[in-house]
């Protein structure tokens, strides 16, 4: 049995405390009026030696932006605002747009971090279900680690759902299609109202979350029950096998829909048919990386004596393979849109390349080039510290990946890794550590009742 040490608990509390401070500063420093927002942006530019005055900046930018992002979803909302309340006064409409972006910033930062850690738990759950459904022999010794990580699914789901409810109640403006005023002036969104409306959106989210949590609850229960079952009695194991296969069908459909709902609909004009896969790849590679990191941590504390470099080698192979898989999907999505150059599709990458150049291409280095080169060698896949270094890069890289998915549609070119972004990450990292290690300490670390546990112990790559 693992005991959740006081030191790790304090670390988790400190992370959560620092995170809360960061988030609070983020929320308190949002502007309340258009003038404040323009002053903030002017200050930032002034500090860099830019000679734009606040008004000139507003007017000049609105011209260039109208050309550049004619099809970006936010410009349509900005046009809508202009038509609705300010007539043809573009400068003011831009100011209001800027205000919304800056007001969205802490919310979007919170959303990115909340989703990122939620997706680690969800990806681990999917990975676990795949092992169960495949009746794999090698990962039995790691089942309790995976079950510990999926324990975060419950708090993660609650936080995400509360966040979405608040968004539905217009506490923030992350999803432009939730704004009736925008929809009234946008024919493309009007055509999607049958799917993109708040009640149906909330209902779908509830179905996904309840379905995933039910599987997590029962698979954990059967897994523990199998430990105390009599020798030769593998009824619980079989139940888990059948349930995992059924869950995977449910999961792959709902995961795809979840990614359209929660992320792709941030840009309601844009669509990509492989988006669900793309998010799935990000989810799985981060999940496997976190499984490896937690396993290495537990081993360094003297737990999991039967887990050896053969198991880690397999996890590292998954890290390597899924990183390449992620890149394949990232590039497939990018190249087709780049080549066809259809305005309503290409605007997605235009905003990212123009305004998010460093995070957009930087994450490809972190998520593809480094894992490819570092984890290619067989010997390196067996070395703990190399897995840890590559793992940290993969985790950061995929946080930036989610950042790139959410931020351009919600804060536009006003992004910055500041208090709310760091605070959100630290807060959820602390919560994640607390929940995961508490859950790991609740059950024996070896799933000793599993019929394949012997195979896992003897496993040799």
């Amino acid at each position, binding site marked *: 049995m693992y005991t959740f040490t006081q030191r790790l608990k304090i670390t988790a509390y400190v992370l959560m405390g620092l995170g809360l401070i960061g988030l609070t500063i983020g929320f308190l420093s949002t502007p309340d009026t258009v003038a404040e927002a323009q002053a903030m942006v002017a200050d930032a530019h002034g500090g860099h030696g830019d000679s734009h005055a606040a008004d000139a900046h507003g007017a000049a930018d609105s011209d260039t932006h109208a050309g550049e992002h004619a099809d970006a979803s936010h410009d349509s909302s900005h046009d809508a605002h202009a038509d609705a309340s300010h007539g043809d006064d573009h400068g003011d409409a831009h100011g209001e747009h800027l205000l919304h972006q800056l007001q969205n910033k802490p919310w979007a930062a919170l959303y990115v971090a909340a989703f990122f850690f939620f997706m680690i738990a969800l990806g681990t759950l999917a990975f676990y279900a795949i092992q169960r459904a495949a009746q794999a022999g090698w990962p039995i010794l790691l089942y309790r680690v995976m079950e510990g990580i999926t324990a975060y699914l419950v708090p993660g789901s609650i936080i995400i759902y509360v966040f979405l409810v608040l968004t539905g109640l217009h506490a923030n403006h992350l999803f432009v299609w939730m704004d009736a005023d925008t929809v009234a002036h946008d024919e493309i969104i009007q055509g999607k109202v049958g799917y993109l409306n708040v009640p149906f959106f909330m209902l779908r989210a509830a179905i996904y979350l309840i379905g995933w949590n039910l599987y997590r609850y029962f698979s954990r229960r059967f897994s523990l029950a199998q430990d105390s079952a009599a020798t030769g009695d593998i009824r619980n194991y079989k139940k888990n096998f059948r349930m995992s296969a059924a869950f995977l069908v449910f999961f792959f459909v709902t995961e795809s829909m979840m990614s359209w709902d929660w992320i792709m609909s941030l840009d309601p004009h844009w669509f990509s048919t492989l988006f669900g896969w793309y998010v799935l790849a990000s989810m799985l590679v981060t999940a496997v990386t976190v499984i490896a990191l937690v396993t290495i941590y537990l081993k360094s504390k003297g737990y999991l004596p039967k887990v050896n470099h053969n198991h880690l080698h397999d996890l590292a192979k998954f890290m390597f393979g899924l990183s390449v898989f992620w890149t394949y999907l990232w590039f497939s999505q990018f190249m087709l849109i*780049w080549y066809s*150059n259809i305005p309503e599709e290409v605007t997605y990458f235009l905003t990212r390349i123009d305004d998010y150049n460093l995070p957009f291409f930087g994450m490809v280095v972190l998520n593809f080039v480094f894992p490819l080169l570092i984890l290619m*060698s*067989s010997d390196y896949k067996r070395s703990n510290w190399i897995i840890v270094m590559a793992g940290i890069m993969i985790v950061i890289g995929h946080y930036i990946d989610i950042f790139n998915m959410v931020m351009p549609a919600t804060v536009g070119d006003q992004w910055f890794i500041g208090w709310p972004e760091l605070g959100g990450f630290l807060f959820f990292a602390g919560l994640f550590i607390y929940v995961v290690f508490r859950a790991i300490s609740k059950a024996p670390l070896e799933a000793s009742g599993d019929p394949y546990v012997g195979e896992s112990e003897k496993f040799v790559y």
Partner: protein
Amino acid sequence: MSSKLVHAVYDDDDTLLHAVKDVKKADYHIEEVFTPFPVHGLDHAMGLAGTRIAIMAFMYGVLGFIVAITMINYIMIADWPQNIGGKPSFSFLENLPAFVPVIFEMTVFFAAHLMVITFYLRSRLWPFKKAENPMPETTDDKFLMQVAISGDEKKLVSLLKNSGAIDVSIHENQDA
């Protein structure tokens, strides 16, 4: 190298693997093992040095990568720029997304083909080469272990028979 070899024939890969471990433990020198399919863990049991073909695969991949970039840059940018879908045709970097599939395929092509050729050369295999295989059945359903005789011949033969061999015979070493 000893002048005589013992040929032990097996009809099961698990039995063979255990026999190889027993023979190694008794400190005999295994010349070669012939199997109809790759037996998992056999190279470890025989104590063979790890393959270095992975290093060559990486270098061949890098070579393919470089060849592909040079080739596509010459074809599409330097020699005959074409207007395809209005993409900028005078810049390699701005056209890179269109070239990535080609670069990827060439990298894989070079790595795969050169690796196979290297493997054939290292294994001394070429067309019309006479088979070195001492027993044709090892390409069907039998496994053969060649052990060099050192010390007590009878002891070795009985060890092999006890290890599950269906047939044990002594041959002159052709290479010695």
